[in-house]
């Protein structure tokens, strides 16, 4: 779990050029980290690549925070 969190944080920090201190589990990509809707799509695609999983569109819609992503990926790769 902590490994997944770190990998997700790394992607988010790199992609959004975000301040690492702000990239907490509760951080919302759009509200807290300055992402737009296209960034969300790119993040989801980056998660798919990093973790070699598929994230369907209806699930992707609900991935709004770092924690959401970690939770989905943990369940998917468990």
């Amino acid at each position, binding site marked *: 779990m902590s490994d997944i969190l770190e990998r997700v944080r790394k992607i988010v920090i790199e992609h959004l050029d975000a301040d690492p201190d702000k990239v907490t589990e509760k951080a919302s990509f759009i509200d807290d980290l300055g992402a*737009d809707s*296209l960034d969300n799509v*790119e993040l989801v*695609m980056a998660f798919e690549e990093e973790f070699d999983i598929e994230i369907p569109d209806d699930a992707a819609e609900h991935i709004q925070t770092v924690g959401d992503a970690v939770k989905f990926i943990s369940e998917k790769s468990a």
Partner: protein
Amino acid sequence: MFNLEGKTALVTGATGGIGGAVARALHAQGATVVLSGTRANVLEELKAELGDRAHYATCNLSDPESVDNLVPAAEEAAGAGLDILVANAGITRDGLLMRMKDEDFSDVIRINLESYFRLSRAVMRGMMKRRAGRIIGVTSVVGVTGNPGQTNYSASKAGMIGFSKSLAQEVASRGITVNCIAPGFIASPMTDVLNDQQKDAIMGSIPAGRLGTGDEIAAAACYLASDEAAYVTGQTLHVNGGMAMI
């Protein structure tokens, strides 16, 4: 100006008059080009003519799977991601609406419009990552003006314009532009078969008093593909000798 050195371009319909001219022009500006079409022997000839920095990948645009495979195949052939997509391939199945068969309509939409969607989607991932890209759809003046006997063709070409405007808005912030070129009457095997009476009628509607050339379309493609055109997106560049001023 309009230097394309270091860029890689995919040109569909490269076996045709306009597509061949576009491929030659992009190549002359320094781009690596991947030629696509259905006829391997014609592609091979053009590749040989261009020499270095030229590759080809065959594709049947009526087959969705073949279309989806084209971009990965082109990138593998070129050994680089695609910076420029010129979706030029298209077909006509002319006929008055009252006599038009279902497949005359659906084939034209699938090959002209759906393949544009599929190719654009396929190049987008790489372009988004690189924060740069040029998508150019070769549409037609009839997509804007209409033309009797071409409900299917003009719908597909108008569709390309609407598609490009929407996509242009989606990806503009990522340094990717999406534009169309709308040729008018261009001298090609397609216009060679017209009889004198038909040609006279066409000339009468063109203020420039002549058909256009593939090179004149290719010049527009070089401009839209260039770094200098970074601030031009969602546009349709009409190259038609003044036959429609829009």
